[in-house]
Structures are given as structure tokens and as C-alpha cells.
């Protein structure tokens, strides 16, 4: 029988202070980088604007393309290689004219410059109004998604568990968005879908672990056993499962990242980060929060069951 991580007895909760520190730094770094960049980089879905995807018959350089566009005053546009040197994205900010006007100008510019033959493969125009609507929808989607999961986990476990799960989830989403910002990737509709998928998926590990904690607590504590022991046991018992399922999802997302093409690359990137961070947060963030919270609220009840908790197994 091929096995990994079976009968482990890692004292995970003992390292939780370190984990809090690492997570705190990662979150701070994410937020700081986003703030430093002056906010997230929005794709045209959210910022509005015009996008053209053009494939040339032969490879050309970005400079040749930029010169050609400069001639028709489409020089303020952002040019980006897309996959290989034959394919480019040209993005023109909102307010530079109508789609027809822009595409005509770009078309004319490329022809005049004597560039190789080309094909316009994709044309997108999002007006400022629609962009704002999509932004608002996106914010709502993420908030409602979290609210829905909070309600469900609070209902299935208890309020503390629900809040801990949501905190872990916010942790995952913030770090994933931060990684995106660090990698200079853009916030687009598919990326939003990826973030919501992380919301739905990374909560899974947390639930499995919480289920196990509840199951173990339901059996009652053995003599000398603390809540920390119970939580540790639950994490260890579900460890192989947590790692294995994250591994399978990681595998397919990696496949998407490599073979899915440019259109899906940002989407796959966010998922890759989210899966890893989500697994980490399940083990090192979500369960320890429950432990610290329980310990804190029991300390506030004088004469409470202090002996049961004995936080942190010696720390």
C-alpha cells in the first residue's frame, strides 16, 4: 500500500504563532503591494476600454507594432505579447473613441507600416458604465459567496468555527490577489471566477478538519487530553486527505496553466496559488484560531474548565 503522511503526530498547533506571523506578513505584503501599485490592475472587463487580439502571419517585434500604432495616434495603447511573438494584445483605454473608430485606426496603421499579414482574432469593447456594473457585481459576488459559506459553516458547526473558516478564507483570497498583483497579472472576469472557486474549494479542507474535530470532541476528552491535542489529532488524521485532494486539484490546475492557453493563464495562476495557500491555511490558520478563541473565552469565565485547554501544549 502506497501511503504518505499516515499516522503522523505533528504538533501543528504548537507552531501556530509562527504561522500567524507568516500569514500576517504575507497579508501585509499583499496589501502593501496592491496599495503601492495604486490598486489592482484591472482588465478591460472592469476598467472599460477596447482590446484587440491580433495574430500576424510572421513573428514581429513589440517595437515594430508600437511604431505602427504610433503613426495612427493609437500609441497610448498598451501592447502585450500574447503567447508568442506572432500574437499581440492591444489595449486602448476607455474614452479614446468608439470600437469601430479604434479598430479602423489600428487596422490602417498596421497596413501602412507594411507589417506581415494579420488577422483580428478578438475584439472587445467594454463601456465605462458596464465596467462599473461588472465591478460592483464582482464585489457583491465575493461578499455574498463568503456570507453564504459563513452561514452554512456557522449552521453546521458553531459560530466560532464559522468565523475561523471565514477568516482563513479571507486570508486565502487576500494572498491570492496579492500574488496576482506581485506577478503583474490583471483582475478580469475569469480571475474573479477563480477567486470564488478558491472560496468554495479551500473551505472544503477546513470543513473536513472541523468535522473531524467535532467527531473527536464528541467522543469526549480522555484523561490528560487537551483541546490542543484533539485539534492536533484531527489535523493529523485528515492530513493525508487534505494533502492528497489539494494535490489532485493542483495537478489539473497546473495542466490548465500549461496547456490551457493564454486566455486561461491568469485564471489558472490564481487557482494554483489559492490551492496551496488554502491547504496551508486549513492546517495552520483555521483550526488554531478555533483553539485560541476557545481558550480565550474560557479564560474569561473564571473557574471555567481551565484544565481542559492548557493552551498551546507548552508554549
Amino acid at each position, binding site marked *: *500500500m502506497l501511503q504518505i503522511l499516515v499516522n503522523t503526530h505533528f504538533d501543528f498547533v504548537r507552531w501556530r504563532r509562527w504561522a500567524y506571523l507568516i500569514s500576517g506578513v504575507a497579508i501585509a505584503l499583499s496589501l502593501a503591494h496592491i496599495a503601492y501599485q495604486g490598486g489592482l490592475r484591472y482588465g478591460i472587463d472592469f476598467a472599460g476600454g477596447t482590446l484587440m487580439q491580433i495574430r500576424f502571419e510572421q513573428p514581429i517585434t513589440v517595437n515594430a507594432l508600437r511604431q505602427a500604432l504610433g503613426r495612427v495616434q493609437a500609441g497610448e495603447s498598451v501592447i502585450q505579447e500574447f503567447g508568442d511573438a506572432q500574437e499581440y494584445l492591444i489595449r486602448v483605454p476607455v474614452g479614446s473613441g468608439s470600437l469601430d473608430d479604434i479598430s479602423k485606426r489600428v487596422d490602417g496603421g498596421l497596413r501602412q507600416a507594411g507589417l506581415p499579414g494579420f488577422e483580428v482574432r478578438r475584439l472587445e*469593447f467594454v*463601456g465605462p458604465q*458596464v465596467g462599473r456594473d461588472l465591478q460592483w457585481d464582482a464585489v457583491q459576488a465575493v461578499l455574498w*459567496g463568503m456570507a453564504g459559506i459563513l452561514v452554512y459553516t456557522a449552521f453546521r458547526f458553531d459560530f466560532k468555527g464559522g468565523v475561523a473558516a471565514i477568516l482563513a478564507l479571507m486570508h486565502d483570497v487576500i494572498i491570492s490577489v496579492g500574488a496576482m498583483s506581485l506577478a503583474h497579472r490583471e483582475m478580469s*472576469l475569469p480571475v474573479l471566477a477563480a477567486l470564488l*472557486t478558491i472560496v*468554495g474549494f479551500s473551505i472544503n479542507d477546513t470543513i473536513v478538519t472541523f468535522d473531524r474535530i467535532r467527531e473527536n470532541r464528541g467522543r469526549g476528552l480522555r484523561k490528560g487530553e487537551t483541546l490542543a491535542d484533539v485539534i492536533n489529532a484531527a489535523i493529523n488524521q485528515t492530513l493525508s486527505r487534505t494533502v492528497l485532494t489539494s494535490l489532485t486539484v493542483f495537478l489539473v490546475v497546473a495542466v490548465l496553466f500549461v496547456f*490551457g492557453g493564454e486566455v486561461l493563464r491568469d485564471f*489558472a495562476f490564481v487557482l494554483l496559488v489559492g490551492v496551496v495557500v488554502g491547504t496551508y491555511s486549513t492546517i495552520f490558520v483555521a483550526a488554531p484560531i478555533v483553539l485560541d478563541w476557545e481558550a480565550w473565552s474560557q479564560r474569561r469565565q473564571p473557574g471555567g474548565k481551565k484544565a481542559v485547554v492548557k493552551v498551546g501544549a507548552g508554549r
Partner: protein
Amino acid sequence: MPRYLWLRIVVVLAVIVASVILVSPRDWRGQPRQPINLGLDLQGGIHLVLGVDLDKGIENVLDRMAGDLRTALQRKGIGAQVTRQGRAGLTVQLASAQAFPDAQRALADFTEFDTRAQDAAAGRIELALKEKVITDRRNSFVDQGLKVIRNRVDQFGVAEPTIQKQGDNRILVQLPGVQDPARAKALIGKTAVLEFKLVDDQVDPTRSEGVPAGTEVLYGRRVDTRTKTETRVPYAVRKETLLTGDLISDASVRVSDVGEPYVSVTFDSVGARLFGEVTEKNVGKSLAIVLDGNVHSAPVIRERIPSGQAQISGGFTFEEASDLAIVLRTGALQAPVQVLEERTVGPSLGADSIRKGVISTLAGALAVFLFMVIYYRLSGAIADLALVLNLLILLAAMAWFQATLTLPGIAGIVLTIGMAVDTNILIFERIREEFRLGKTVRAAIDAGFRRAFTTVIDTHVTVVVSGAILYQFGTGPVKGFAVSLMIGIVASLFTAVFFTRVVFDLIYMGRRRLQTLSI
């Protein structure tokens, strides 16, 4: 074999058969068919969100009514200027204050208006469109737009278009497989208000001091047939509209003797009578044919035209003429529309995306399949079988719901592959655990499935919750992702729990003393 197992096997077989039928590329007669709709991003096409300009629509209504008012007053011999004021009002300025009582009586017939203010001495009456009329009209603009656009698209000839109302004042148009998006967009978005106005021969449209009241300058284009250069030609025309496109019963493309296409317009009986009157009264003058504020041509009226036939020429290409005929046949948009969002995907990009999607799906599936077999051996193979069934059900469900497969939808399928095995891993790990505790094979399987079940339900609910919210707030392709994710996850309840259990029972049934388990 116990009866319950038989029943379950029957259920599994029924699901497989039904799924295969749903996804089969041929129907029961052997005719080829497309079991699953492909999204615009996969087959190419154009996606448009049009905003209906309701305020402009009300203004148009007012402008038209101003003309009606003027005509009604003229019939009673009352001279008056009627001008639009603000967004919902008209001002009637009589030529002579003596006509005030007569004018009041004449205007009483126009029940759409309330009198907002009147000044008998100055001969001025201010009218306001009633609130209810405004609300009714605003509501009707989008529906009318939908109808007109649907007719235009039908006549243009697009297979399986989507034309829907979106929100309060938006129209979503999706045209799969359209080759010339610019042309399709021009056709759909054209307001197509056709007006016939008299050219004011007394006024030079280019003069610097401007044109007198009652006259306006409109432009037309003239294409030089040899050099193909376009010039803008100004026309001074009387403001009154003598005839509108509402009175047209048919429009078609003809080719003139010199091989130039033009649009032949036939008026209905009312229009034909009016056209006869207009042409009779204005022989020798030029009649400007104005479409959406642009003069198409301004032929000289040589004689009364009783037939109700008019020609619109103006240096058209054949395509332009045929599109013009379509918009004239299908009528004008009461409120103009503007493009708020447009996404056009060329067919080659779509084909590329499909290819990449298929490769990713296969590669992802292969990676997971191998992993499961290596790690769980026979049980892993069973899980793989469940995964294949999951994909089959997923596709069948998409065919059943007539869902549209998009590129993010394919990503959703790939993701489902990764997530669906989650359930089996959860169960298998639990079985292993129970087995290690010293349980027999049967007991371990039983306990594994039973204990993992609540957790499985929990994990499914959370994915479905986030999927449903994504569906609610997502647009276009993202909705496709949410659909495939949700269907795949729900299907995995059946395949990973129900189906795998049946297979386990079949294999390990009756072998109570069995000591080994390939897991």
C-alpha cells in the same frame, strides 16, 4: 446477490444509457446533431450589450407630437410654432394671440398632455407630457427595440441568435458565427428613422449667417464613382417632416440601369395617399430623403407620384442597400440604442480554444487517473471509472439543460475532475483508517462510506453555494464556468458515493473473511 444491489445496478445502468443518448452526436434517426451548444468564445461570433436611450426616445416622441400639433393647428387655420421644451414639455407659440381660444379647443384633443401654463395675451401655451404616458412609453421602448432587432437579425440570417432584455434598459444580442461583425452591428444598432423633407431652394446652406427659423442644415455624402472619395454635402431643408418610414409597407433592393443598387420603397395606403399629395403640391422642388438625420438623396419631384413607390439611391454598395432595405422593412427603433459592451471572437481563435480545452481536459484527466491508480490501485481504478461516469453525466446534463459550453466552462470541467476525486479520496482514506484500526474489509468499507458521508455533503454544499453565487453575479462565459462546476460537483455525489459503493459491493460482496483490500 441481494435485491438492493440489483436495484442500484439498474439505476446506474439507466443513468449511463440516458447520458449516452443525451450526448450522442446523432439523434435516434441517425441524423447528426450538436448535443451541446458552444459559446461565442468557442465558435466565434459577436456579443453585444445595447443600452436603450430612454430619454432620447421620449424626446423623439415629443418631436413627433410637435409635428402632429402643428398640423392639427394648421388644419384649423391657426399659425403656430411648436417647440420641444426640456425633457417632457412642448411650447406652442401662436402667430396671433386672437387665435388663443381656438387653439385651446384644438389642443384639448391631445389627451397625452397636461397644460402646464398658458398666457392668453402672449398667445403661448405650455404643455407637459403626462407622467403615465412617459412611464408607458419608456417601458415600451425596450420591448419595441427587442422586436425590431429580432426581426432584423432574422432577416439578416443568423442561426440561433440570442436576443434578450437585460436589466431595465439593456438588450443583449449574441450572434454566433457571424462573419462580418461590423456590418451586423451597424444593422442592429441603426435607429432607422426615415423622413421625407422638402429642400429649401431659397436658402444657401453654406451661408455664414445661418439658416432662417423653420429650416435646418442636414448633410449627405456623395461618393465619386471613379476616385471613391467621399464628400459631405450640406442641404438646407424645411424642418417639417412630410412623411415618415412608419408608413412603409415594403422595401427591397433593386439595381438601376447603370448597375447601381438602390432601395425601392412601397408605402401603405395612407402613406401612398400622402405621398401623392406631397408630390402633387411640390412639383419642381427637391424632396430630401433623410435617414437618421443624414440626407441619402434629394431628387427633384417631376410630377405627382400616385403609385406610392419611392426610390432611395445614394451610392450604395449592394450590401448597404440590402441592409437598408432590412431596417426599413423592420421599422425604426423608437428609442436609439448605443453599444455598451461588445465582444467579438474570430472563428480561428474559437477553434484554438477548443483544441487547448480538449488537450487540458485530457491531460488533467490523465494525470489524475494515473495518480489514483498508483496510489489506490484497484480502488483507484474504480474511482477513475467513477470519474469517467462523472464527465459523461456532466456533458449529458449540459445537453439536457441546453447549457452553453464556454472556455471557462471547459476550465470548470477540468477543475471538476480534480475536485470530484476529492470525495473518493475522502472515503478511501477513511476506509484505510478503519482498516488500520483492525476492522474486517467489509466493516472498514461500511464505516468508511458511512463516516465520510456527512463530510462529503458539507464539501459539496459549499462548492454549490459559491457556484450559485458565481452564476448569479457572473456574466457570459463566467456563468458557463459556474454551470459546469455545479453540475460536475452534484454529479460527483452520484458517481463517487453511489456508483463506487455499488462497485465495491459487487467486488467484495459475500467475501466476509477477506483480509486484503486493494486500496
